[in-house]
């Protein structure tokens, strides 16, 4: 059971609204987003429920949810939302806040997805561009699932789908610098 009324001002709602630029209070729970969302069946709390939880100020429950990790940012929901709420932005705001406060869902699936993004970003930091083979390899190593997609590898490699090397950017330094400044900006807020 959740007890309401004792936590005072709903600062979580305010934080999500500020960060996303949307107003979660606009949501009137019609559920159009849920049936629009291609991955709502995988989410523990579908978008509509997430919105209500934000309204109720259930910060920890929202942070620990996997919904915002499953959100594909396909924008189908916001395109159909009768109240024109930018739901992907709300999901993203919750995710960023969860990362900032280091309070993240620790299920294997979420961990894997998060790992993937981290590897991807480190690839770009290193090479300036995506190095697909290396990334897939590293992902498999780091998620301890060496043989994932291995049946596809010979075909893909043979057909030249995935190149064996990548030409790093001439100005790779520029990218590193960008990463550093961006990180500082992130902290400044």
């Amino acid at each position: 059971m959740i007890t309401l009324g004792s936590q005072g001002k709903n600062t979580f709602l305010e934080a999500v609204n500020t960060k996303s630029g949307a107003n979660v209070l606009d949501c009137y729970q019609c559920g159009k987003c849920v049936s629009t969302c291609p991955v709502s069946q995988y989410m523990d709390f579908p978008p509509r429920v997430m919105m209500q939880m934000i309204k109720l100020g259930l910060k920890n429950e929202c942070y620990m949810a996997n919904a915002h990790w499953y959100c594909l940012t396909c924008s189908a929901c916001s395109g159909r939302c009768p109240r024109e709420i930018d739901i992907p932005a709300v999901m993203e705001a919750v995710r960023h806040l969860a990362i900032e406060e280091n309070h993240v869902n620790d299920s294997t699936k979420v961990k894997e997805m998060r790992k993937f993004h981290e590897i991807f970003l480190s690839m770009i930091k290193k090479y300036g561009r995506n190095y697909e083979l290396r990334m897939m390899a590293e992902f498999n190593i780091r998620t301890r699932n060496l043989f994932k997609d291995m049946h596809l590898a010979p075909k893909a490699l043979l057909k030249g789908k995935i190149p064996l090397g990548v030409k790093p950017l001439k100005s790779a330094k520029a990218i590193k610098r960008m990463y550093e400044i961006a990180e500082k900006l992130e902290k400044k807020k």
Partner: protein
Amino acid sequence: MKKLTYFPGCSAHGTSEEFDSTLKLVLKTLEVELEDIPDWNCCGATSAHVMTENLAYALPMRNLVLAEKLSNTTMGIACASCYQRMKVTKVHMDENPELAKRINTTVVEEGTYKGSVDVKSMLQYAYEDIGLETIKSKVTKPLTGLKVACYYGCLLTRPKDITQFDSPEYPVSMDQICEALGATATEFDYKTECCGASFSISNTEVVENLSGQILAMAKESGAHAIVVACPLCQSNLDMRQPDIEKKQGITYDIPVFYFTQLMALAFGYPIDQLKFPKHIVPVEGALANIGKVVPVPEKVKKPIKAVEAESEVK
């Protein structure tokens, strides 16, 4: 001769090389000269905005700033994902000069962001700037007989206020281009459903489920092939197709073409330049339909009239 700044995107040298090379063939015929952005970088794709806000703007911002140094006013982007990141960044920066100033500090050595370059996907460029008439005029080998389901994915027409192109629910630009090439576009209701996109590697289960639904609907619509304008969609629908078939126990055998491949084909380029061997699902079966005389479809029953309906009822 038109000129266009070109952003190929990382996958152009990898998974979607056939998109890149056929795009170049097609634009040669259409007399468009491409100018690459020197030393472009990755747009950050989904990962950047999933994890952080600033980097998700900074990476595309660098490309935009570099593109502004070239003389063209439009930048064409092959990859739908790159296109969306770039366009989102551009729209947000133009709307919010303060944010633009802040993000600009990350790429201050490259230059100052001005917002002078328009960002378009290659599909949008072909539809709006080249036009159906011009495309039609270049067709030497019409694709008559080929029935295609045009799949747009999430990124090309959504969100509407960012992309400002075609309908977010039932777009028709690619359908019209395919029809201009002589092919028949089927009535396909999953045009803009998501294929699973960035979960390609990290959450294959989702991709197989979503892409599976799209394949099923494409088959249902009677299409011989799916046409796309996005490398991620292509790889999800093509590369994962055997797995999906295994999982669902259904044989789809639907090749997934880039629209530029079909354009090049219709423009008369020899088949060996179109990189069909790169496809996982063989294309020959679908292409065999070209030139076949399609039987005229049975006239759909007329809409109800008082009398007809009455006889049905009684």
